[in-house]
């Protein structure tokens, strides 16, 4: 499984993400520069966290116009695997590869901390090594992670089982308190209808080794690597 990590100006989790795939998971991993026109035959494109283009205009709004993102759009349409983490998730929303939008966190704070998320759908290409209902401890670090979708869109996402992660407490209960940024339905991660594109606000690369305080994020990487 060959991974490609996209670097935009302002990405700041790109090296951590590269390290997680290349050094921790021991997978062939290459860099993809936002001005490139080639995806270098990767099997999975990873959009890392950070502040692409300084978050100017809206988070992820400018990155979607990168030459490489036009390739990513075609790659995704053909069923290619795309994972967006944090700012990468925001880019996928702006690009329209995932439904919805991000608002500023409800209490207007930049949140940088460990959270618990509940795995809602373990039948996806990104989560099949986990089990539905499993609670993962993975850090978040964002200002704009308050997920929003109009009612009809939200209903459709839920009906299709596209919600992959929700903010929860350590026991997996979906409480208002656990929904740290005020996301609708506590949504922390979701896939597109086809199930080949996933975005998530928590950073699995920051929870890929016990030394980092948690290795729970590996379930996503292991799912990607192993046969579906």
């Amino acid at each position, binding site marked *: 499984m060959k991974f490609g990590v996209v670097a935009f100006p302002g990405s700041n989790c790109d090296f951590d993400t590269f390290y997680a795939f290349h050094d921790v998971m021991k997978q062939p991993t290459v860099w993809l520069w936002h001005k490139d026109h080639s995806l270098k035959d990767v099997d999975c494109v990873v959009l890392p966290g950070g502040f692409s283009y300084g978050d100017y*205009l*809206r988070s992820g*709004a400018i990155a979607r116009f990168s030459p490489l993102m036009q390739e990513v759009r075609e790659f995704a349409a053909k069923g290619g695997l795309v994972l967006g983490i944090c700012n990468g998730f925001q880019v996928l929303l*702006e690009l329209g590869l995932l439904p*919805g*939008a991000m*608002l*500023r*966190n*409800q*209490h*207007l704070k930049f949140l940088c901390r460990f959270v618990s998320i509940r795995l809602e759908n373990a039948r996806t290409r990104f989560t099949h090594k986990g089990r539905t209902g499993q609670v993962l401890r993975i850090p978040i670090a964002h200002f704009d992670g*308050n997920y*929003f*979708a*109009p009612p009809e*869109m939200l209903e459709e996402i839920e009906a299709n089982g596209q919600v992959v992660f929700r903010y929860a407490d350590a026991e997996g209960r979906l409480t208002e308190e656990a929904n740290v940024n*005020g996301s609708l339905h506590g949504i922390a991660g979701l896939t597109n209808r086809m199930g080949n594109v996933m975005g998530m606000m928590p950073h699995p690369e920051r929870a890929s080794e016990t030394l980092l305080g948690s290795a729970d994020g590996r379930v996503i990487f292991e799912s990607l690597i192993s046969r579906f």
Partner: protein
Amino acid sequence: MKVRILVSFKDSVLDPQGQTVKNALHTLGYDAIRDVRQGKVFEIDLAGVSRAEAEKIVPEISDKVLANPIIEKFAWQIIEE
């Protein structure tokens, strides 16, 4: 020609920044303030463009780039012919 484009959240979308500004104004005693919505203003200089062309271009760029139609709406006016 110069146009001014105002991008703001749709009425159905909660605006936590506007809420915070409203609360601050209430703290100062401006009790008459019922609601505050915060937005963005773009002033764009268009070269050699007729009014009809502006009416085509401005909504296009607002929908494609300046606003995210899922959460935001826009309004615009010509501020300099």
